[in-house]
């Protein structure tokens, strides 16, 4: 991995991020500028900023890695990540903007007038924000370690410091410019190498993506073992390997099977079937539910909607975001698929998240083109860490400064940013072994099980009460959080319990909706007296200006 261009590319992205941040800093004057950019940002800028903020390490690196490892079944990740914006558009965007709240706790208080519900929502915003921040910082550490050979904490601390300083000094106005720039950078960083990769694949006489006998090594490759494992070779031989051992493969050798990786061509190429794989089908639907409904509950996504001038603009912005995000998600599939041909050693090492950064040089060679494209991809990956962390940090810090510290001053926001950035940085340094994509998926599941029912029922159903909303968030979100904790620190499970805990959304989301509706119906007398006025405010067209 001796590519001298990678580090300059990463430094350039970081400097550009900070530079645009300081350009914005000169424009940011008041608290309102810091928090909602004075609501003076055009829909196109705003949509690019939302897209830039949303496309995290999980999208840039994780999706391609999952496709390389598991095949067609995980295509639901990109589809769901994009479809989340459609659910947001259909049920939330315009009314939420008109509500005038700019955080989820604000919405709770406006709609239901309950301080205690506000506190509960604050706790969930912070939990989801940190749950999402830790894997971003970890991904940064692991990526930097993979491509430059630096120690793991370097990347994590670097991203944490840059992002915390930038958010604390520039606030969201600056961040809007930064995020919009980073959307286009991320798109370019995947699209340009993808074109070269596709041309290279043509020039190589289109090698089969999924040969019937499983993937083959194209070139002589050696793999250094880091963890004990059992490799199953196609001829049935099982070989136990120990750390430190080096395994060499010749060109044309088949790739051995490691537990947890889909090697079989048909399994990789074709979706789960009924009967044989009911748990796979359940996991697929659970994933669909979590990603479709979880996006609207992510704190860093919602806060963006208050920078639209009115409800109609919020709707149009969301549609542009859907288009931008959909365009981006065409690309990771190409990397995952070509990774089967050019980087099969990742199937043995299990470090499939590295496929995006390793593929350009693996396919195009170590000449100038390969090295330039590898540097471009590394810059894009770093943009992904920086932008998503910035967005998360802005929203968590906003909630901490208004609801925990209880002041709306610029200094309060800066203090909150430092607190919000320090905690996940410490966690990222101490908790290792979390799988980036899986934790991000769990964050979606928690958001879908807590804030989705609250938002959807709060916007469309007059009968919602504060107790109903609190019960739904506590039971649904609590169940999802329990599943997260069992997954991260609990004992290894197998069979149905493992599936139910690893992909909880299919039972926690219906549970949250049911509890919310039942408890609200039982406490009907607590429906706020001003619900009619609130409904009018949420749904009346902007042109009436009631």
């Amino acid at each position, binding site marked *: 991995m001796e590519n001298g261009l990678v580090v300059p590319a990463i430094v350039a992205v970081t400097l550009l991020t900070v530079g645009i941040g300081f350009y914005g800093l000169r424009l940011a004057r008041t*608290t*309102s500028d810091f*928090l*909602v950019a004075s609501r003076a940002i055009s829909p196109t800028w705003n949509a690019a900023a939302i897209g830039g903020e949303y496309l995290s390490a999980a999208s840039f690196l994780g999706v391609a890695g999952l496709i390389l490892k598991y095949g*067609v079944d995980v*295509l*639901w990740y*990109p*589809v769901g990540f*994009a*479809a989340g*914006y*459609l*659910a947001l*558009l*259909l*049920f939330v965007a*315009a009314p939420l903007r008109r509500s*005038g*709240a*700019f*955080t989820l706790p*604000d919405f709770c208080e*406006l709609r239901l007038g309950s301080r205690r519900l506000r506190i509960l929502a604050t706790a969930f915003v912070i939990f989801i924000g940190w749950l999402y921040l830790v894997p971003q910082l970890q991904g940064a550490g692991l990526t930097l370690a993979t491509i430059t050979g630096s120690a793991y904490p370097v990347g994590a601390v670097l991203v944490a410091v840059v992002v915390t300083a930038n958010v604390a000094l520039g606030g969201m106005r600056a961040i809007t410019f930064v995020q919009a720039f980073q959307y286009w950078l991320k798109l370019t960083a995947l699209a340009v190498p993808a074109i070269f990769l596709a041309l290279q694949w043509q020039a190589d006489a289109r090698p089969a993506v999924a040969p019937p006998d499983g993937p083959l090594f194209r070139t002589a490759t050696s793999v250094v073992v880091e963890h004990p494992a059992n490799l199953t070779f196609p001829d049935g031989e099982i070989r136990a390997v120990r750390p430190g051992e080096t395994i060499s493969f010749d060109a044309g050798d088949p790739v051995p099977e490691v537990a947890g990786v889909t090697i079989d061509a048909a399994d990789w*190429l*074709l*979706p*789960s*079937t*009924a009967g044989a*794989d009911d748990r796979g*089908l359940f996991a*697929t*639907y659970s994933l*669909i539910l979590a990603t479709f409904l979880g996006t609207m509950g992510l704190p860093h996504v919602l806060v963006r909607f208050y920078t639209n001038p009115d409800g*109609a603009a919020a*709707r*149009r912005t969301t*549609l542009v975001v*859907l288009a931008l995000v*959909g*365009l981006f*998600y*065409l690309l990771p*599939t190409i990397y995952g698929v070509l990774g089967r041909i050019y980087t099969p050693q990742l199937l043995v090492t299990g470090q499939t998240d590295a496929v995006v950064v390793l593929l350009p040089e693996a396919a195009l060679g170590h000449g100038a083109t390969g090295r330039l494209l590898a540097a471009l991809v590394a810059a894009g990956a770093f943009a992904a860490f920086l932008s998503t962390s910035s967005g998360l940090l802005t929203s968590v810090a906003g909630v901490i400064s*208004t609801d925990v510290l209880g002041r*709306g001053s610029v200094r309060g926001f800066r203090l909150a940013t430092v607190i919000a950035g320090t905690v996940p940085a410490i966690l990222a340094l101490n908790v290792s072994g979390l799988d980036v994509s899986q934790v991000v998926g769990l964050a979606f599941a928690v958001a879908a099980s807590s804030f989705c029912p609250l938002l959807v029922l709060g916007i*469309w159903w007059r009968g919602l009460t504060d107790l109903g909303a609190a019960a739904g968030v506590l039971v649904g979100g609590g169940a999802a959080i329990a599943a997260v904790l069992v997954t991260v620190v609990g004992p290894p499970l197998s069979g149905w319990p493992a599936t139910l805990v690893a992909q909880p959304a299919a039972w926690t989301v219906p549970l949250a909706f049911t509890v919310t509706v039942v408890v609200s119906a039982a406490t009907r007398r607590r429906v706020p007296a001003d619900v*009619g*006025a609130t*409904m*009018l*405010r949420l*749904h*009346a*067209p902007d*042109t*009436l*200006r*009631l």
Partner: protein
Amino acid sequence: MSATDDRAPTPGTEGRPEAPVPSAANGRSVPQPRTRIVLADVSGREDRGDRTRAELAQQTRVGEALVRGLVRAQLALALRLSLVVVIGLGGLPWLFAIAPSVSRVTVLGVKLPWLLLGVASFPFLIGVGWAYVRLAERNEQDFTDLVQRPEH
């Protein structure tokens, strides 16, 4: 507190067109003729739209029914379009599961599930979103027309 206060609706202070200064003011030199004539002008122009707006803002039974109708129309639209997505996309895993032969179909050298999920799903989602924005804006236009329709 938060910056939400600046968004609080202020009925009656915004969105009302400035009443034109009528030419009747060129009569005798009455003190402050302008004020009197403007007031008369506004009350004379009080149309059904203003009354309906007041009904909406004051939560009368008529206003309440109007808002309920709008909310129901918008919710029905959102649910109808999500049903399109639930069937169009949500049906796919089930279809692939019960009819494995479908997933073996190859189009342009690519297996159908890869093409449907990896490529076709995104334009499909954008198309549904585009339809929603158009139809939701039409619902709102209908509501605005209803509220602002002049008497007869």
